[in-house]
């Protein structure tokens, strides 16, 4: 059995209440359509909610330190992957390569020539047809 300090059930119900309040805020915040507020309420609060669950429900703080370090290492690798891949994925050209269909699709989108319905696509080398509009 677990060696963590036992809490009263009311403690967990209280945490659940906090999570629901945060959920409501994260849902309402983006409705104001202010970019920084959306980032803060949607993603900032997601981090807080995850922290509450990991600490209070998963009791990670009650596990040996090496478990915490192991989990932290996987998160670091995730950020390394992002930092390594994102510059190329997010660029439309680089040394000896270019994404012509993407450039055209993004130009068409910026010019309002492409709608936001579910069909077709507006980006990527393998979605060149979207540059000519949706099908």
């Amino acid at each position: 059995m677990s060696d963590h300090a036992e809490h009263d059930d009311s403690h967990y119900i209280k945490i659940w209440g906090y999570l629901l309040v945060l959920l409501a805020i994260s849902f309402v915040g983006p409705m104001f359509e202010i970019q920084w507020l959306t980032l803060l309420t949607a993603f900032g609060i997601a981090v807080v909610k995850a922290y509450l669950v990991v600490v209070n429900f998963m009791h990670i703080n009650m596990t040996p330190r090496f478990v915490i370090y192991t989990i932290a290492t996987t998160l670091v690798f995730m950020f390394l992957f992002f930092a390594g891949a994102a510059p190329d994925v997010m660029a439309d050209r680089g040394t000896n390569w270019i994404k012509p269909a993407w450039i055209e699709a993004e130009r068409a989108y910026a010019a309002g020539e492409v709608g936001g319905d579910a069909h077709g696509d507006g980006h990527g080398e393998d979605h060149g047809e979207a540059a000519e509009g949706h099908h």
Partner: protein
Amino acid sequence: MSTRPIATTRSAAGIPTARLAVWWIIASEIVIFGGVLGSYIMHRLAHGIWADYAANTNPWIGLTNTFVLLTSSLAAVLAHQAAERGDGKRAAKLLYATTGGGLLFLCIKGYEWSYEISHGMTITANTFWSFYYTAAGIHAAHVIAGCIIMLFVAQTAKRNEELHRVEIIGVYWHFVDVVWIFLFPLLYIAK
């Protein structure tokens, strides 16, 4: 002579093997979900049109499913507490409630997906929807796996046996909840 494998009873790392195993699984899951979500984020930031595609997802369904998963997580942690007190029957009941939450989540997702697919938003429609179905699909597979395992754990917990398993499946379930906590704003909120 005991028929239990030695690995289930030893704790050479200063932590019960089962608990170490579930954290090890979670570490590998972070890499899986992290890769998918990281790829989604970099594409989303690079392509303005993805915000328009994301506008087609229903935030109320996302909100409802988040509420369902958070509530099922509460039931899972209460089951753990009941197991700590040696109350296997209550732990089993709460695990059944958690499984019910998982099944409700899947039903809502099934309704949502059938609506989207019938309106042309299929996995092959474009890269956004490919990511959408892949990320949510992998997550749903974890919900299904969690529900199945939880039913087995509840069976033994009901007999007051192997109560340590209640904590183990609970930790896994909370992780599935944490993944959804990040999927919710990415797929439903940020338009």
